[in-house]
């Protein structure tokens, strides 16, 4: 067995051990989004000048919409593992609603769509369709 094959085997074995150990030590549960106030605080930290308006947290606490009072723009926040991914929603956005279920589609290579169950889905739909136009 030459050195390169040995190195590959050590690497593959090492990856398997490290991932298994990480799972055993830290588990694999995702963290839900914080409540509306905390989420607004997080967005304010990430987006200089952000002033939270209306915040709609999905029932499963895995996604949310938040309005920025400065310019009326809307941000989507999604759970990814124990982190949060945010996107400013703008033109090119696809919006569809079925009752309280809102489906958003994006032209984004790593984020194609998002599903939200919101108590005021209809008002969000109107707002988002205004942005998308």
């Amino acid at each position: 067995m030459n050195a390169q094959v040995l190195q590959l085997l050590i690497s593959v074995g090492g990856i398997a051990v490290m991932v298994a150990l990480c799972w055993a030590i830290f588990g694999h549960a995702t963290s839900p989004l914080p409540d509306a106030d905390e989420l607004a605080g997080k967005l304010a930290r990430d987006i200089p000048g952000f002033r939270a308006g209306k915040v709609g947290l999905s029932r499963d606490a895995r996604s949310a919409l938040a309005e920025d009072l400065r310019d009326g723009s809307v941000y989507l926040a999604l759970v990814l593992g124990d982190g949060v991914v945010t996107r400013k929603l703008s033109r090119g956005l696809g919006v569809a609603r079925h009752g309280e279920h809102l489906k958003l589609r994006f032209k984004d290579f790593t984020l194609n769509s998002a599903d939200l169950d919101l108590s005021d889905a209809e008002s969000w739909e109107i707002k988002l369709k205004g942005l998308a136009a």
Partner: protein
Amino acid sequence: MKPFDPVTLAVPMFIVLVIAEMLFVRATGRGRFEVRDTATSLLMGFGSTIIGALFAFVFVGFARMIQPYALFHIGWSIPAVVICFLLDDLRYYWWHRASHRVRWLWADHVNHHSSQHYNLSTALRQPWFGVLALPGLLFLAPLVLIGFPLEMIAFVHGLNLVYQFWIHTEAIDRFPRWFEAVMNTPSHHRVHHAINACYLDANYAGVLIIWDRMFGTFVPETREDPPRYGIVSQIASFNPLRVATHGWVSLASDLAKSKSSKEFVLYLLAPPGWSPDGSRETSDSIKARWAEFRAAQSPAE
């Protein structure tokens, strides 16, 4: 003298240290791990090694092509290795700075920054398609043209990469001031990986932080502003294929949309976030907005 590859030899040490850091984080709470993020980082490192080896001929071929024009023919000696190491570290600083300021290079380097975590596994989250970042080759040229042997350049660069592994951690707070003044440390590199507006585009150093101090890009980590990691528009996937290609897909999409050769060139060479109508954000515009916001919050004394 026959050189060895420091990175190859360091692989077992990488594995042991990642495991040790996991246990340390579990015991102390200083740091964060997420299993899918860790798996992605490790697979990115693995893929980078394989694909890097397959395309190494491009870098070697370029170096051999320009080698006949070298000013000197420097042999192996300890002083030569030390000087080559220092110059390679300076070269790394400028390559790294360009990789954050030139979209073509960022399309590749963005992978390394795409984790929202900062632990030793993040160090291994390396890009797969460096061969496409062609302007990066230019940064290799000076050392070859000075006349350092290619094996020596590869050797010192390997040492540089091995050094950079251990600084990807939240487990270590600060070192004594003299060390923090000269060397790149976990504290300095946390700033580099942070998305806080005040930390953007800072601390590009590989081994010696003196380059950032010399060229005006040094920003110290402060207790008031704990770093938050990743990229300004966080990637929404743990799929290594998507992570490895998202920067390139995004660049290709913009290039396809360009309406003139000027736009095409600017999409390639302007800072990440540049757009013809200014509708997107660059690190400069984010920092300017942050400074404006801070100034508005704290009236002049």
